């Protein structure tokens, strides 16, 4: 161990300190005791997501995530699942724009076992041609289930980026094209692992019913002898915002009604966190709850849409990606309503908010709801662990996860007005979904 820093307890009532260490091989470690229940969680966040996968290999980061469950030096195929579950635990993994995570939550008796399982695959995953072919088939079924065989599949997270962005990392489909997936080979997998899965390119988060010193010793025991490897330089995915409104349309054979997605660029949270958070509050003011501005106007007032939803980010949660990131607005509407009527009403509501700002009481209600939803999320150990791990990896500060309710409550009306003013019609992407025959 080369360093150990203990941060003071935050305002979160369940927080019992957050302990940071860095192993000699570069692995960053977060140890977060939370003795409310006799369970523990272990998560590895790796600094590679689908924005980093090579051209011609769309979907590879996600496919590789599947391969990491297929066995490692000490674990036969399927052993990982069996050991987690036969310890009474649950597990999963997920692939995002800028990171991939692997995690399990178990009764606290299984802490060392969970660390062993994660260390073994970070050290020496068993990458075989047979598992690769099998997981290509499984991923294709996942895509059929979540995209091809359902209404609004991939809407908007796959469909909107190619309209808003120009460059391959930001615009391509992170689930992947079937042809690309089928061409992926074992050497791609080996190269991807060596390039991105170095211990210095990952964050290990351990949360729950644990003693920080005991847990640190177990972490060192299992992860300490993974050799250090070169950490890849993280590229910038930056590109200029659109200089006009861009439009595209897709046909969805399964959709019963038309839909609309609007994408705007968000401030970079690394350099303008207050500006980013003002957009998060704005999204809530627009569409969270019956009294929200766009719900009132579009659903109940003008009766233009059946559902409307705004959010920071493409994956549903704010602060999940680095710059560039997307403010997303989606609506489902009857075929009799022209999309431009909806856009016109959105622009009017944004202009009103930009000129007059929100009512302070309206703002207070929105931030009370945020605080309450974050409390509920953090009551679930798995959610708090993943929020801490991704905040540490993506935003550089795990504490953000616990401080978010307070930061959102501090957003001033003027900042929300400025955020509303920044969502300009001449710098956005509009995607329309048309129901129809064979897509």
């Amino acid at each position, binding site marked *: 161990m080369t360093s150990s820093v203990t941060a003071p307890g935050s305002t979160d*009532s369940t927080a019992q300190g957050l302990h940071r260490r860095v192993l000699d091989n570069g692995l960053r470690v977060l140890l977060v005791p939370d003795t409310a229940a006799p*369970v523990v969680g272990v998560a590895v966040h790796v600094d590679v997501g689908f924005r980093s996968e090579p051209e011609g290999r769309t979907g590879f980061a996600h496919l590789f995530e599947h391969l990491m469950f297929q066995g490692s030096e*000490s674990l036969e195929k399927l052993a990982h699942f069996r050991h987690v*579950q*036969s310890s009474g635990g649950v597990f999963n993994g997920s692939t995002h724009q800028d990171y991939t995570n692997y995690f399990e939550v178990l009764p606290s008796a299984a802490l060392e076992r969970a660390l062993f399982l994660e260390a073994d695959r970070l050290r020496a995953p068993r990458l075989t041609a047979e598992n690769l072919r099998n997981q290509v088939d499984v991923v294709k079924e996942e895509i059929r289930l979540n995209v091809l065989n359902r209404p609004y599949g991939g809407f908007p997270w796959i469909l909107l980026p190619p309209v808003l962005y120009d460059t391959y990392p930001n615009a391509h489909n992170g689930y992947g094209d079937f042809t690309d997936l089928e061409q992926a080979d074992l050497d791609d997998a*080996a190269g991807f692992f060596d390039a991105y899965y170095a211990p210095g390119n990952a964050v290990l988060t351990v949360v729950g019913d644990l003693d920080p010193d005991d847990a640190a010793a177990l972490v060192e025991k299992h992860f300490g002898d993974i050799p250090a490897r070169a950490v890849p330089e993280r590229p910038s995915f930056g590109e200029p915002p659109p200089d006009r409104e861009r439009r595209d349309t897709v046909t969805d054979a399964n959709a019963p009604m038309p839909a609309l997605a609007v994408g705007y660029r968000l401030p970079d949270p690394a350099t303008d966190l207050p500006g980013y958070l003002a957009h998060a509050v704005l999204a809530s003011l627009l569409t969270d709850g019956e009294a929200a501005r766009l719900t009132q106007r579009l659903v109940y007032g003008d009766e233009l849409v059946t559902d409307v939803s705004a959010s920071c980010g493409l994956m549903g949660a704010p602060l999940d990606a680095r710059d560039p990131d997307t403010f997303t607005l989606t609506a489902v509407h009857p075929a009799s309503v022209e999309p431009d009527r909806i856009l016109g009403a959105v622009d009017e509501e944004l202009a009103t908010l930009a000129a007059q700002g929100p009512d302070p009481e309206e703002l207070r209600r929105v931030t009370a709801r945020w605080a309450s939803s974050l409390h509920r999320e*953090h*009551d679930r150990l798995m959610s708090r662990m993943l929020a801490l791990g991704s905040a540490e990896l993506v935003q550089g500060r795990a504490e953000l996860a616990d401080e978010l309710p307070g930061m959102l409550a501090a957003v001033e009306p003027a900042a929300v007005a400025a955020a509303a003013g920044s969502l300009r019609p001449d710098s956005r992407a509009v995607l329309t979904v048309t129901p129809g025959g064979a897509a």
Partner: protein
Amino acid sequence: MSAPTRRSAEEIGSTPTGPRPLPDLGPQRAVPAPDEVDTVLGSGLRVIAVRRAEVPMVELRLRVPFADPAGTGTSDHAAVAEVLSTTILSGTRTRSRVGIDDDLAGVGGEIGFSVDPERLAVSGHALAEGLDTLLDVLADLVLAATHPDDELARERDRLVERIELASAQPSVIARRALQERRYGDHPVTREMPRAEEVTAVTADAVRALQDAALRPGGSVLVVVGDVDPGDAVARVEKALAGWTGGRAESLPALPALTARDLLLVDRPGAVQSQLRLSAPAVGRTDPRYPALQLANLSLGGYFSSRLVENLREDKGYTYHASSSLELDAHGAALLVETDVASEVTAPALLETRYELGRLAVVPPTAAEVESARRYLVGSLLISMTTQAGYASTVASLAAHGLSSAWIREHPARVEAVTVDEVAAAAAEFFAPTRFTGVVVADAAASADGLRALGGVEIPS
């Protein structure tokens, strides 16, 4: 640091140390039972309040039996009930729709209503300091919802659109077909009313149903959070003092599930097929229940199961295959489900039947039983660690006449099950000849294969 490493897949998969042993499990800390009050008010409403103070929140669940009093599958009850649960938030005698939402938002609160053939379910939460506001809004909705004509007309149209949207989902199509295959026209099949039935619902019918059916007797209210349980019950009693009179309507027992061929339901052009197989089972109070749970887990109740390892990890037919127990107030049913690529519809059915038969005659080994047992006890523990999870668990137990003691005592029951008892349950409940169900698929692509397998009714 050094230049980037570049190894082959084979080199990556082994180290000089070689494979390492799996660490043993450590000692497990037990969970003390939380403070709880479980009582029945004079109105017949059962109130359960539990102190769980991990976060400064309070969770609320209300379950009102809400079955069709006519007891037939042809009445308009399902549609009226669905509109009621949608429009109940549109206004009361003293609050507008926006007023309701503003009052809840002020205490970080939310409240939602849903209805199924068995009951009306209310789910809410707020910052703990807002419990009185949450209860005040709940009482107002239960006692004084007005279902205003204009709001009702609009909500009804939105509901029709939502139902049309949902009806295009393959999972919804499969669920509807399965319910009808299993239970004919029993009210339990009416999980989602049809759009045309909703269109015909009047405001008067909704108000009449609210007056007649929203009754405290037999209902249960659960409050879990950063509260004193005795004090929380007193607050509930005060807030709901005006809610009196009568018993809510319970769902009659379901018709016995009988074994039949699966029904092929054509979905032209589908790229994926839905397989749904079901058989009768037993519920929580049956002595065979824990053994049945372990047998079910071994088949497809979690990832490390025979179905997932065969259909997904070996064959790559599917992303997801599962087996579960559906519980109702009178009993239970087994449900085996998977969604597979169209071209492997028949092979996937073959493998599913094979695994059912294998479970019945080649029962779970001691290792399989032990793995399922650890998973069941552990996942029970994990599911109870959140206020929301605890509240929902207690509410669903109470809705079936059980108390939180059942869940606290269940780990001991699971620990006591023997391998032989699991084998007996596997043989009794999982034989493929006991099942019925549906296959939703593109008939043009899959009928020949299904016909070759047999046991599938193929409409011409």
